[in-house]
């Protein structure tokens, strides 16, 4: 088992190396990418089953024992998110490959896309699996460096500007992260998360608060929680369709995962976390209200993405086993549904030639299949029963209602934000799918990959999107076992015991 846990990181790296070396063989690049990600998804499934059945899986790299060496840990939370993320990565890769084939022909290879895509996947896997604060930093850097390349390929002036914001903000947060790690190490003498969990409690309360807030800001920037979200609606809509879907699905959730992991493991608390409740309210409302004001489909989705980060923050803020488990389930649901919506937006754009909502119309008649593909994730995001979104939200609300007056008030905001989400998505539905069919807009700039203009869509692009919809439906079908599992994950997270024993042995 300890070998299996290293492979989700090593295989994509090997795949990246192979796709760089054989940059002239497009077929090989595609096959390597898809096979590697499929294998990683299968391994993640195995890890999830094992971690749920017999406790966290741990690998000590190079055979060095934990507080000194680097440990990779897969517990229920990380294995679940790894599985969902890899499925999304795989589906988006299939979509991206077929979009490239549709746009440029079968014979085009790329020296950058496939390697960077796989490196990003390796970084995401490492971020989920690492049990070490510094390795977490490395994982973020691998992930972000690959994302810088993916977001700024084939640049135009606007895209350089958007990319600049993204890169600058990310670098800023990395710098803060490194500072925070240095401070944590200075205060405790270790960066191993399991070891830190024990030593943090011994620190003075003020110092713990400072460290906790620093890590909160760092991961808050990456997870786009509200005062720190400004970069996201600016940069994601400027990325090529599949890349935006990948980022929307994964990157913010990796940030949230890191936040969840560090706050539960290092800074345990006994009562709901007021600051986080406030941030959750702000994130939910500002995101949802921002979405209502948008005319650009991708910007609208970006604001909804931000808004729903707030739901997970709510789970973290209540800080009991049930709510933290609910947040984990919500993260899994959020990864699939946002990636799906961005892919659907890509499909819509390729039919209409524009992302402006007021210039589309009547797609329900001309593209009924697309309408179905949009409605299911849209209802899921809004949390209408019996979709996965409802299941996840119910878990959060149930936890919140039982946790005192503050959380109950915020639970009300959750419902309001859900309604606002529904309003925003209904607006999209009315503008895009109802009304008179409009002719597609001509492509102003045929060289531009982002503003695609109308273009052919290949059947696999629909299939990939439908696959993600199926994953999302599977979450609602298997809601019972999944909720039970995330509840156990929540108990583990707050207990901290199983994680520490798995990494450090019985010593602590």
């Amino acid at each position, binding site marked *: 088992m300890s070998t299996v846990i290293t492979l989700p990181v090593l295989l994509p790296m090997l795949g990246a*190396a192979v796709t760089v070396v054989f940059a*002239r063989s497009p077929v090989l690049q595609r096959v390597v990418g898809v096979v590697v990600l499929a294998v990683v998804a299968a391994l993640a499934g195995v890890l999830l089953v094992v971690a749920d059945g017999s406790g966290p899986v741990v*690998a000590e790299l*190079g055979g060095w024992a934990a507080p000194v060496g680097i440990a990779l840990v897969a517990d229920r939370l990380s294995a679940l998110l790894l599985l969902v993320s890899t499925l999304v990565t795989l589906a988006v890769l299939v979509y991206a490959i077929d979009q490239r084939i549709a746009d440029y022909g079968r014979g*085009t290879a790329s020296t*950058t896309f496939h390697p960077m895509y796989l490196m990003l996947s390796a970084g995401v896997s490492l971020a989920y699996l690492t049990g070490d604060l510094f390795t977490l930093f490395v994982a973020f850097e691998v992930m972000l460096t690959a994302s810088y390349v993916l977001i700024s390929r084939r640049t135009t002036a606007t895209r350089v500007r958007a990319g600049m914001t993204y890169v600058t903000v990310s670098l800023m947060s990395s710098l803060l992260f490194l500072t925070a790690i240095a401070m944590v190490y200075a205060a405790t003498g270790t960066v191993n998360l399991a070891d830190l969990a024990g030593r943090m409690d011994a620190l003075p309360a003020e110092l713990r608060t400072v460290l906790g807030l620093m890590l909160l800001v760092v991961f808050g920037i990456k997870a786009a929680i509200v005062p720190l979200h400004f970069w996201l609606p600016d940069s994601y809509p400027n990325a090529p369709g599949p890349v935006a879907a990948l980022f929307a699905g994964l990157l913010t959730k990796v940030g949230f995962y890191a936040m969840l992991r560090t706050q539960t493991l290092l800074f345990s608390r006994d009562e709901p976390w007021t600051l986080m409740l406030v941030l959750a309210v702000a994130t939910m409302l500002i995101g949802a209200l921002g979405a209502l004001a948008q005319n650009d489909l991708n910007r609208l989705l970006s604001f909804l993405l931000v808004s729903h980060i707030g739901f997970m923050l709510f789970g973290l803020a209540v800080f009991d086993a049930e709510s933290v488990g609910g947040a984990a389930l919500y993260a899994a649901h959020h990864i699939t549904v946002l990636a799906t919506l961005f892919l659907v937006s890509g499909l819509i754009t390729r039919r209409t030639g524009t992302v402006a909502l007021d210039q589309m119309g009547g797609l329900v008649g001309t593209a009924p299949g697309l309408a179905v593909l949009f409605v299911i994730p849209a209802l899921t995001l809004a949390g209408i029963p019996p979709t996965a979104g409802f299941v996840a939200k119910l878990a959060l609300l149930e936890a919140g209602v039982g946790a005192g007056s503050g959380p109950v008030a915020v639970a009300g905001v959750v419902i309001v934000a859900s309604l606002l989400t529904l309003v925003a998505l209904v607006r999209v539905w009315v503008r895009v799918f109802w009304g008179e069919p409009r002719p597609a807009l001509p492509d102003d700039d045929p060289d531009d*990959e982002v503003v695609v203009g109308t273009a052919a869509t290949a059947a696999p692009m629909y299939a990939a999107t439908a696959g993600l919809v199926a994953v999302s439906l599977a979450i609602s079908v298997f809601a019972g076992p999944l909720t039970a599992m995330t509840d156990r994950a929540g108990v583990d997270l707050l207990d901290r015991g199983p994680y520490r024993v798995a990494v450090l042995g019985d010593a602590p």
Partner: protein
Amino acid sequence: MAEPDRADPDPEQAWDGPRQPWLLNGDCRGPRHRSLLLEITTRAVFPTVLVFSVYLLLVGHYGPGGGFSAGLVAGLAFVLRHIAGGGGDLGSGRAVRPPTVIGAGMAVGVVSALLPLAFGLRVLESAKLGAALPVLGAVEVQTSLFLEVGVYLLIVGVVLELLRSLGSGIERDLEESGERARQ
């Protein structure tokens, strides 16, 4: 639709240009930009620096050095050639596409991380190999050396890629500023 980024154009063009015994084959440069002294020094120093980088690579496990610093030193040798001979000269750099070097380095690194599994060890675990060689005598090698070789290749590849992508721009800027200065 525009073409996407294809694999690089044929790299062989500049490679089999005329070669002279001592001067670098920077035949694309005007004589105004060439410095005889620098070119000949580079010619002499280049192999030496490369050998030194290999020394750093091998000695890295117990002494100062290692794959990263060795790769940088080797990269500096190529930078020196670039300064002396210009973009047209990086013959030895262009024989292989830099991304291939990067990819090969990564592949070597990942494979060497997985290789211990074949011997019943854990991922990334290293062992000491000893052998008695005819001339050198008893030689001991730590298997983490293979990982270091991967890092070495990766860094050299990155430096070459930087020279290729940014170096030509620097050269163009220099020429433009030089022309402005003369006017």
